[in-house]
């Protein structure tokens, strides 16, 4: 029941976040809506601009052409009548023709070409036009001369064996059209951007309730099971909100039911355990009167009764953490004394009193002496007891316990002062392979190297409870190879407990091992040893 809860050892919220981080995501809904709006606006405005441009162009050109045709024919008529008179000087005649600004006249009369402009002569007129007009057909043609658009109107004057051409520059019209095109393109661009903006705003507005649901889901994933979504007065949202809230309620019920079940079971087990403990203690005090086999039986009974009791206690403790009802009960204590007593009490229990007094010293780093710390005494005792027991069961016992200030750390924001207490427990075990370093903080996880003794004596919950107790203090726990073999567990408790922190989740990697040994000679103060 408990085992299946967090089989991967990663808090659900963290797992979710991690998954979403590693998967490569396509563009979000909001981006897609924005893009769709932008494309729509772009298409629409382009089509509108195109139509506007072509209609305007057509109108401009045809108006201009009509005006020019009128003038050309008027001029042509004038020239024809002038040419009938034999005295007419053609050169003067062509100069006298009244033309619109920007237009040049070219006259073909008597096999000769006459032009008003040096630059626009016979050769400037396209050959096709010339042929057509000289052949007796009036014609107009648009062409480009030196990069600027021109219109040529040719009027044959068969009565006088001449042809009159007028070349109009369309540069002005082209300039107007260019300006129009630029304006329209700018308008299309603005419309597209505006479309994207509207799309973003609309999708943001439409997704705003979704953001609320997301926040709620994140809060629930982070353990705040009381979170609910407000539907407001939106009928469309109502359904989602009520479904979400129903889900959250069911989830909460289930978690609470499970935690309550664990809690109820461990409470119910306490009644028979009370009877057993009391009767075994009576038997214990009459041990001398028992026959040797009965004495051995009593020892077995007592040992397993202790283990059973611990298991029930641990299960209850775990159920409190699961139900979120675990609270710190802070007391100001001398941490060294607390650690010392907890270690001593555990050591004598763990060895059934056979080993006698504690076989290892508690070392005290500089700056710890006289320090007062606000901690939950009972929880710190459990932390120490579980670490010592863990060492006894799995790693051949504790070799060293050290209480010290955390060294000052250099972090991104500057130097972090040594504002935490470190308790280090080293053992003489074979060490922990890297893949198991964090896994051993999982419930009922026993490392591959755990001996048979451990399997038959531990509860399998000790280290996971250590992690939970430490987390409740806002501290951290991790393990690393001890110098000289074995493993060192490091518990870091902040001087000012601020409540659980996300960074201290079980299995959170600790900082790089600090290359410092207290009492290694270099330190200012040698550790004081308490035995």
């Amino acid at each position, binding site marked *: 029941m408990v085992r299946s809860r967090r089989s991967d050892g990663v808090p659900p919220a963290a797992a979710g976040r991690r998954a979403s981080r590693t998967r490569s995501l396509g563009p979000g809904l909001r981006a897609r809506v924005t893009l769709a709006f932008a494309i729509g606006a772009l298409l629409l405005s382009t089509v509108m601009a195109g139509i506007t441009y072509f209609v305007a162009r057509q109108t401009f050109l045809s108006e201009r052409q009509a005006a020019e045709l009128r003038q050309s024919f008027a001029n042509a008529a004038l020239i024809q009548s002038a040419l009938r008179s034999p005295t007419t000087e053609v050169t003067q005649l062509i100069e006298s023709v009244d033309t619109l600004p920007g237009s040049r006249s070219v006259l073909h009369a008597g096999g000769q070409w006459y032009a008003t402009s040096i630059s626009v002569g016979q050769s400037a007129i396209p050959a096709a036009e010339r042929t057509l007009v000289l052949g007796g057909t009036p014609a107009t043609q648009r062409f480009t001369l030196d990069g600027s658009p021109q219109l040529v109107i040719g009027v044959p004057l068969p009565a006088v064996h001449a042809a009159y051409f007028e070349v109009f520059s369309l540069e002005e019209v082209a300039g107007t059209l260019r300006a129009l095109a630029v304006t329209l393109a700018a308008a299309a661009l603005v419309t597209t951007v505006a479309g994207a903006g509207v799309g973003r705003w609309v999708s943001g507005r439409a997704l705003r309730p979704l953001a609320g649901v997301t926040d709620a889901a994140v809060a629930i994933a982070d353990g705040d099971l009381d979170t609910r979504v407000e539907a407001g007065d939106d009928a469309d949202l109502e359904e989602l909100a009520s479904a979400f809230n129903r889900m959250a309620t069911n989830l909460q019920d289930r978690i609470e039911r499970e935690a309550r079940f664990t809690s109820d079971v461990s*409470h119910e087990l306490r009644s028979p355990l009370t*009877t057993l403990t*009391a009767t075994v*203690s*009576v038997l214990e005090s009459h041990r001398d009167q028992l026959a040797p086999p009965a004495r051995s039986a009593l020892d077995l009974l007592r040992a397993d009764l202790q283990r059973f009791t611990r298991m029930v206690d641990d299960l209850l403790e775990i159920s409190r953490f699961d139900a979120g009802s675990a*609270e710190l*009960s802070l*007391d100001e204590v001398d941490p060294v004394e607390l650690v010392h007593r907890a270690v001593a009490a555990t050591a004598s229990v763990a060895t059934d009193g056979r080993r006698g007094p504690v076989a290892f010293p508690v070392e005290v780093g500089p700056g710890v002496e006289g320090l007062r710390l606000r901690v939950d005494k009972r929880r710190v005792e459990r932390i120490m007891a579980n670490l010592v027991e863990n060492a006894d069961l799995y790693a051949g016992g504790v070799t060293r316990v050290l209480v010290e200030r955390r060294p000052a750390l250099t972090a991104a924001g500057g130097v972090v002062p040594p504002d935490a207490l470190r308790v280090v427990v080293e053992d003489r075990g074979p060490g922990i392979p890297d893949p198991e370093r964090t896994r051993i903080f999982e419930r009922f996880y026993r490392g591959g190297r755990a001996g048979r003794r451990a399997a038959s004596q531990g509860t399998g919950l000790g280290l996971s409870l250590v992690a939970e107790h430490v987390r409740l203090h806002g501290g951290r726990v991790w393990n690393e190879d001890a110098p000289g073999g074995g493993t060192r567990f490091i518990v870091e408790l902040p001087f000012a407990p601020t409540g659980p922190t996300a960074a201290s989740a079980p299995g959170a990697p600790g900082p790089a091992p600090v290359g410092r040994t207290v009492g290694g000679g270099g330190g200012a103060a040698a550790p004081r040893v308490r035995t």
Partner: protein
Amino acid sequence: MGRILIVEDDERIRSSMRLALEDEGHTVEDVDSGEEAVRRFSADPFELVLIDLMLPGMDGFETCRSLRRHSTVPVIMVTARSDTHDVVAGLEAGADDYVTKPFVAKELSARIRALLRRARSDGAGSGALTFGDVEIEPDAGVVRRDGEEVHCTRTEFRLLCELAGHPGKVLSREHLLEQVWGYDYFGDGRLVDVHVRRLRTKVEPDPASPRFILTVRGMGYKLAV
């Protein structure tokens, strides 16, 4: 050693507790309900009472309050739950201490002896102590406020004497546990907190904003001078 009354509805637990405590040298009687306990106690007072919190009918809290109306007998609550809520509620009901099931008989016996020793040694104190309108006569075991006698349990009385005996000095929870309950380092600080709260309701003009028994955050308690 002492005459102890066990109030417990589970027959096997009752028998085993009785066996274990008798084995530790106490004289033990047991009853299976709160009503019966109150009846037995009024007929023939005991030196100490162990009350299980979860009793059918009159529950442990009610039984304790009922006994407290007429007696200052030391009471230990026996609870299957060590949750703050139950422990505090039990202490608020007037218990001097609590033990959590399953308990080790030797440990329970040690606590019983500590409470009994204190109960017997009460009255062997020093001269009268006063603060505000409160007057304490350790020898007579009497507390008067404005000349009127205040009804205190023995634990409350000892706590008051300890605080009044060191006016202006901050006394840590550990110190109070040692001096008042006779426990070592591993006592539960909540015992002190709840007893201080109860004491305030008896000697403070306004228990919500105490003038005499002050909390020194993170340190303990002190009697204002």
